[in-house]
């Protein structure tokens, strides 16, 4: 390429003389507050008084840190082979889900809607569902369609079971075509509840469906099942598989969207990539046991499995940090009788070594964090191992049980003494906390960047969604490897900050 033509963008445009002048004129015309007033207000925002006012807020949510149920249901469905997520409701929600996932994973996301309109609001969405199923099956050729609802269908009270039956009777889909469904109104719960409902629905629907193949059953009896939970990291699912392979364990991942949402650029786009085989899911109940890597995003699924599959079921804690990963390996070992191999023991040792290398820089650092319940529990646990003090822990979609568990965890370590847990609060609450009681850095999704900027602290991006950084989801944050990744994200951010803030005389090379 030849030398580029210089083109100024608006960052430079605003520095030009004309713009500066017109900005001055505009200031006059907009009659903004004086600088003093701005400073006063900024100072007021840092007071306890404002914080109290802010926490007294009830009707208004400002900057929410959760997504809605059907979004979670879509992710669960994407984990099964040739399965089309199909959302019964008006069209907009689904367009949002698709762009949310596309922006986070940088991948195309096949998901369709029944595009309900006003007529459906009056007469019910039966025709939309039937026509939609027929169109979707002929257009996208799935092996299974997983139906979830948005609030619209819930408010008018559409009966999915009956509607799908009618669709079969009318021949829109064949009698045997699998159509699991879940009710996922967005005015209840959050994306983790939607994930859970759909996972439970798919598993119970497929269970035993493929008939009694003896060979399949015998094979399944050799395996364990692993359920990832609402998992925004494709790297985590791959890491779980790597660990299981190293342990020489046979397994089925129930809801494996790692290939679907991290597919290779091979020159030909396909609608479906990988995913849990429907036949594997059908025999999963015959396995040695089931491990859910997250607890709060698999509650209903847990209940279903415990009551129906008649084998051991263990959920969480999410294997972030040494202690949690150890626990996972022990459980796999107990379930399968396989020993923990030297390779994993060495890996553990290397991560511990890395932690000792970094500990002086992380010791006593105060952090704020926001995210889903399971993730937060993992991050707290890791923080305590690293001597980091979790101070503000904000969980918009957390509940009482989570709050208590988090508090118990904090109480176990002197580094957890300052930690406070806020459930049901939003990111504007977090902003108040960051201003009244400052911390060294924040951990959470892209949406925390506003609050972090206002508080002038760096943000370590972990969780969902991450729109403004690339490839984070490809690296695991679970297992020993994932722990190492998180460690290096955090410590290097601290070191980066040290350099940024170092005056000339302390700007040095070795750390």
């Amino acid at each position, binding site marked *: 390429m*030849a*030398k580029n*033509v210089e083109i*100024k*963008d*608006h960052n430079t*445009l*605003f520095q030009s003389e*004309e713009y500066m002048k017109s*900005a001055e004129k*505009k200031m006059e015309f*907009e009659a903004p507050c004086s600088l003093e007033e701005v400073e006063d207000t900024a100072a007021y925002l840092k007071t306890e008084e404002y914080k109290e006012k802010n926490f007294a*807020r009830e*009707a*208004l*949510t*400002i900057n*929410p840190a*959760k*997504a*809605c149920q*059907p979004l979670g249901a879509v992710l669960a469905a994407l984990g099964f082979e040739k399965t089309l997520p199909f959302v019964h*409701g*008006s*069209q*907009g*929600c689904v367009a949002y889900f*698709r*762009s949310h996932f*596309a*922006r986070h994973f*940088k991948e*195309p996301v096949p998901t*369709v*809607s029944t*595009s309900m*309109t006003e007529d459906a*609001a009056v007469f019910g969405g039966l025709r*939309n569902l039937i*026509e*939609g*199923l027929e*169109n979707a*099956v002929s*257009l996208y050729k799935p092996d299974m369609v997983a139906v979830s609802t*948005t*609030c*619209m269908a819930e*408010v008018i009270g559409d009966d999915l079971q009956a509607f799908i039956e009618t669709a079969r009777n009318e021949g829109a889909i064949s009698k045997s075509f699998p159509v699991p469904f879940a009710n996922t*109104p*967005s*005015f209840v719960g*959050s994306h983790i509840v939607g994930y859970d409902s759909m996972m439970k629905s798919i598993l119970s629907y497929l269970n035993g469906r493929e008939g009694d193949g003896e060979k399949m059953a015998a094979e399944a009896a050799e395996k364990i099942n692993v359920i990832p939970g609402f998992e925004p990291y494709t790297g985590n699912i791959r890491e779980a598989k790597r660990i299981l392979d190293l342990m020489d364990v046979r397994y089925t991942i129930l809801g494996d969207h790692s290939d679907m949402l991290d*597919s*290779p*650029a*091979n*020159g030909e*786009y396909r609608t479906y990539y990988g995913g849990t085989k429907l036949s594997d899911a059908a025999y999963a109940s015959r396995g040695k046991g089931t491990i859910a890597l997250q607890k709060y995003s698999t509650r209903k699924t847990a209940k279903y499995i415990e009551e129906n599959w008649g084998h051991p079921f263990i959920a969480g804690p999410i294997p972030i940090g040494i202690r949690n990963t150890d626990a996972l390996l022990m459980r796999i070992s107990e379930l399968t009788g396989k020993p923990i191999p030297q390779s994993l023991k060495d890996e553990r040792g290397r991560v511990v070594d890395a932690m000792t290398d970094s500990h002086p820089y992380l010791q006593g650092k105060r952090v704020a964090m926001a995210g889903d319940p399971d993730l937060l529990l993992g991050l707290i646990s890791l923080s305590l191992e690293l001597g980091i003090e979790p101070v503000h822990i904000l969980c918009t979609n957390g509940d009482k049980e989570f709050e208590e568990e988090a508090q118990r965890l904090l109480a176990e370590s002197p580094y957890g003494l300052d930690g406070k847990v806020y459930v049901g609060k939003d990111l504007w609450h977090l902003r108040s906390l960051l201003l009244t009681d400052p911390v060294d850095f924040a951990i959470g999704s892209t*949406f925390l960047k506003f609050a972090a900027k206002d508080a002038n602290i760096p943000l370590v991006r972990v969780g969902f969604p991450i729109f403004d950084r690339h490839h984070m989801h490809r690296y695991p944050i679970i297992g020993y490897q994932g722990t190492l990744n998180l460690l290096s994200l955090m410590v290097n951010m601290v070191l980066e900050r040290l350099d940024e803030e170092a005056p000339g005389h302390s700007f040095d090379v070795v750390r």
Partner: protein
Amino acid sequence: MRRQVLEALEEPACEHSTNENLKVCARPKPGQASGGCSFDGAQIALLPIADAAHLVHGPLGCSGNSWEGRGSLSSGPHLYQYGLTTDLKESEIIFGGEKKLREAIGEIMERFSPPAVFVYSTCVTALIGDDLEAICREETRKWGVPVIPVNSPGFVGSKNLGTRLAGETLFQYVIGTSDPPETTPYDINLIGEYNIAGEMWEIKELLDKVGIRILSRITGDGRFQEIRWAHHAKVNMVVCSRALINLARKMEEHYQIPYFEGSFYGAGETGSSLRKIAGLLKDRELERRVEELIQEEEKKLHRDLLQYRPVLKGKKVVLYTGGVKSWSVISALQELGMEVVAVGTNKSTQEDIARIKERVGADTELIDEGGSGSILKAVRSKKADMMIAGGRNMYVALKEKIPFLEINQERHTAYAGYTGLKRLAKHIAHTLSHPVWQLAHKKAPWCEGWADDR
């Protein structure tokens, strides 16, 4: 609300209204990947009013999923960036959300003292029958600050329809409610320009040079106050999108402001837009200045583009913006020496399609079905060199190793005006000649026939 929706659906300035079979704008097909809802469209049109509070009355999803999803920039206030919602829960679905809405409006007033609050209805609040109009009327009285209902729940239809409903809202509640401190004979409004990636600022720079003043920005980088006095403008320019044409038409009817549809994508369209403004302002001297500016800018442009020409010349593009920009971007690409071999029209109006046809040759394919399959088919059958489209289709293209340029609302680069065209040329040239395509098309060394696999 029904009446408003029907009216918007049957917009007379939208030519499908003369076609018996197309009495109203098309509705989406169940079971197919489809675009945004009317709520989305309304929010897109109004959200760029940067100093206003935008409160979404509904369950969390509508706000949470759309929060900060677009690249409209503001040179000042940032209240529009806050994700404000009543976050309705089950109990409110049963007992109604009106009380919570009133409280939320109060909390906004006390906390942010905005010049106005836009309250958006959503599927749920429309279904449970919350009386948005009445509440907004009362709250307006109570606070002495306009609280404006935006009645465009998702289920009434497409994004375009929602944009139109937003136009109705502005016309009904905002425009004409205040007067500017001063007017000049060169005052115009930009309608439907959302300042994505700061495009408006570059347009403004051009207009400033000849002394045309933007009286009201509707709505990119807009302020509530300036939209109130929009009725004092001498000319309305509807930028690219036909979705807000209803607003321009009504303003012509009520305030006798002539309007035209124009675009700033490409030198030709930019020049003709400038000329039209000057012509409608009926000022000889201004027309002369505009001619001078166009000549000067085109000369510079020609010189700057020279180095990209060899890379761009004759390259085939599939354009799928999934919206109304298609026709104007076509001209820009043609000026760069490229050939548009296929254009997506699934969200274009009849008029847009007519304009597309004016601009492309007979063998250009019009892709009217949504979905990645049909776009990819066009790329393959036309042997296109690259694809220019919106974010949702980007990753499909990349799987197929097709050079891709993002052009929709999430982009971070401004492509309007002469500067924008240079930027477009530069980015397309970079996209086409990036080494990653060589890498992507080479087989791995262990494969048979290790060479380009194309």
